[in-house]
């Protein structure tokens, strides 16, 4: 199968994630969309690894997974703190700083 199809898939996933970040209002869902974008990047790395015939891309995918896990830890801590203060995880409610 033509490996370039996986690049189109990665591009599609990335776009879905990016649109999700822009249109969704719940912080958790936005965060899931960011994760989808990171996974799209991972898929692109692995595909290029296959196309180029070098292993670097696959190694990068592992690094990305670890970093994404760290991001989850920090992100959920912040979202939970916000939820406990406001009883809501909607990013529209958090608008104290707009003038």
């Amino acid at each position, binding site marked *: 199968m033509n490996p370039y199809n996986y690049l189109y898939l990665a591009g599609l996933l990335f776009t879905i994630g990016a649109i999700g970040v822009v249109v969704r209002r719940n912080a958790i869902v936005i965060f899931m969309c960011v994760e989808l974008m990171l996974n799209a990047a991972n898929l692109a790395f692995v595909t290029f690894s296959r196309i180029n015939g070098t292993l*670097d891309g696959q190694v990068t995918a592992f690094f990305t997974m670890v970093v994404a896990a760290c991001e989850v830890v920090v992100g959920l801590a912040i979202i939970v703190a916000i939820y406990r203060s406001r009883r809501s995880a909607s*990013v529209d409610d958090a608008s104290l700083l707009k003038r």
Partner: protein
Amino acid sequence: MTFTAPVLEYALLAPMLAIFGGAIIGVLVEAFLPGRLRAPAQLFVSVMAIITSLLLLFRIKGQSSTTPAMASLSFDGAGFLFQASILVIALLSIFLIADQDNFTAAAATVPGSTEEREAHQAQSQTTEVFPLTLFAVGGMMLFPVATDLITLFVALEVLSLPLYLMAGLARYRRLASQEAALKYFLLGAFSSAFFLFGAAFLYGYSSSLTFAGIQQAVLGNAGNDVFLLIGLAFISVGLLFKIGAFPFHAWSPDVYQGSPTAITAFMAAATKVAAFGAILRIFYVSFANAEWQWRPALVLIAIATMLFGSLVAIAQRDVKRMLAYSSIAHAGFLLSGVYALSKSGLDASIFYLFAYGVATVGGFAIVTLIRDSSGEVTDLNRWSGLGKRSPIVASTFAFFLLAFAGIPLTSGFIGKFSIFSAAYESGSLAILIAGVLSSAIAAFFYIRVIVLMFFKDPVEDGTSVVIPSALTTITITISALITLILGVFPAPLVDFIASTASFLR
């Protein structure tokens, strides 16, 4: 298949190892020392780690190597200057961070709850900020010397993740602070996804993760140009986000305003140095020969950033928001140094970054001093007549504002002059005109604040200037001195940067 152990040049990595070591000791201190001893112990560990790191860094001054950790890092003159600037700024900020009145007693409690009041009464302190700061500093030192895309990405996250957390630790107006942390985190994660996707396409283009490999591919015109363009565009989005350039600036006013002011100072100054270090390296090394693909876009972004930052800053009534928009304008000025793509552009950018970073820490340090019973007063209307009540604080703040405006006899003037002349030499009249124009606009709102402080009558509403603690005084004094010395007597540093700054290719 054989496995070869990596060869590490520990002497060149030592400054970063000292910082990360200090951070780990900080975590242990947090775990094992009783509450009352933690704050002084943490301050001691952090200051020692930064000073050790500076000493180790000056020991390897002048050395350079493309393989301190295989091909992942490259230590050279420019890397030395970026790391030294970051360490000086970190040292100034850590004294500010040590003033614990800026931070909440217990970050995990709900604002306004009984637990929060109990934590305040027990005088708990958020000493976690010290190791978090050190981790961020370590990431920042790694960011401008990284020469492969994995290391660059990991460094980006190591510097960002602690900052997201620290943004949410303010003592007063905690809801706003948590909101700043959420916005910074979501937009930061969004931009690092763009960065990573761009990195994937650069890897696809050059079949190499290292900057040198990408440079070879650009030189040899080997790969698919579509991949190069996608990679370049997406990776630039990630990097431009970190410096707050125009279409990607939306986070910065909110985060600057909501974060504890000590953290704002550190983040505003040190992140800029680190991110511009990485931008300069990747554009000067990897993409130098693809200049027709990025310079036309960059000139537009630079001009839009400086004009937008200066124009919107005029309308701000909050001092931290005003400084945030002014930092957007400064990002635009600095981008003209990236655009220059020449040795003089590199020198000018490094000088500008250092001068601006130090003045920023000083400026925000002053903001921490103006308070009423419910925390810092950032509303500019309530700053009127400050010069009559506390002339020294007001004049020092005025001095930092003049440095931001680029008035002669401050470091800002030398920085602006050299960066615009470098951009002009490399052939863009537009960037010069936009730069001078937006400097004039910016001078207007800086001077308006000075007029407000000195020539308006004071308002009696409980706003007062607190007596700065010894540590805050150190920060303000040293920042003001550096800003003054670099303005009056810049030649030694300018010459030093000119003889040191270079990228190993």
